[in-house]
């Protein structure tokens, strides 16, 4: 059963061995071209790229996916639209993107194993899993000026009194798009597409200048 289900899709581990292959994150060019101001005591925003994580798009019905995730990752789907759930370690997150679409982010190197286990568990259910790890990157923003920096950049209401920890939305970011998530009291995350990453990075540096934005490398 599960063998035949697996055979009907092309299950392909596109991750290389990072020890033997030169790897470039989506911000590699930007860091070289635009530089990375070092964080200082004056920095009210600090940016860091969490490169090379595993990003999987899950499609399908909430109930079956929830069950499978609980089994495979020991954490279920977030219960409400535009929210996230994390596993106990906080290293794996699942974000609602649409009624039949979620973004699962796992530590680098885990994506393929997770995909395989989910596929095995889901077998003949109606679902899809797509690895998009190479196509996006996660940036964390920390500091007291993050909400104001985000107000310069996105149309969504990011006032901390409105945007609770655990919320995440896909929205317009300047003239690109980004997923905005709040993972802690003063910690926010952006998921940006690779091809727009340089634009988003330059935008953040420019808009963050007045907050003495620093970039941790």
């Amino acid at each position, binding site marked *: 059963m599960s063998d035949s289900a697996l055979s009907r899709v092309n299950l392909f581990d596109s991750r290389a061995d990072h020890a033997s292959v030169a790897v470039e994150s989506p911000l590699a060019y930007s860091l070289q071209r635009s530089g990375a101001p070092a964080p200082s005591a004056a920095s009210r925003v600090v940016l860091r790229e969490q490169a090379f994580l595993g990003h999987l798009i899950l499609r399908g019905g909430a109930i079956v996916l929830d069950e499978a995730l609980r089994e495979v990752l020991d954490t279920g789907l977030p219960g409400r*639209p535009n929210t996230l759930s994390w596993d106990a370690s906080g290293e794996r997150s699942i974000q609602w993107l649409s009624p039949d679409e979620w973004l699962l982010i796992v530590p680098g190197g885990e994506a393929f194993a997770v995909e395989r286990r989910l596929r095995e568990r889901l077998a003949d259910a109606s679902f899809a899993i797509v690895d998009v790890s190479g196509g996006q990157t996660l940036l964390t923003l920390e500091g007291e000026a993050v909400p104001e920096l985000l107000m310069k950049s996105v149309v969504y209401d990011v006032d901390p009194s409105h945007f609770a920890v655990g919320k995440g939305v*896909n*929205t317009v970011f300047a003239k690109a*798009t980004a997923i905005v998530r709040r993972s802690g009291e003063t910690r926010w995350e952006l998921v940006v597409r690779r091809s727009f990453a340089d634009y988003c990075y330059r935008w953040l540096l420019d808009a963050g200048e007045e907050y003495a934005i620093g970039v941790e490398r």
Partner: protein
Amino acid sequence: MFQIYCPYCEELREEEEFHPKGQAHIVRPADPEACSDEEWGDYLFFRDNPRGIHHEMWVHAVGCRKFFNVTRHTVSYAILETYKIGEQPSVTAEPSAGEAAASTADVRQGVRA
């Protein structure tokens, strides 16, 4: 600039996240080959264009990527309701000539209808 309630995200979102997609409930004829040129042209190009209550389709393009329908007043721009594809509006104006014809012929079926 509009603020639109996305029936899938279940919250009000800014117009910049959406794209308007024209009149709602335009159904592709089930058997195109049976359509006359005139019927096909009507399906492709002819639209209600009311000054008042209008049902239109939008997509939450930068959001959940779902299509849905909006009942909006085309003069006041007030949004009277939004509803999922496959659902019918609860706020309606008098049916237009085109709508009346379509409903008597009972050709409306499928989720877009």
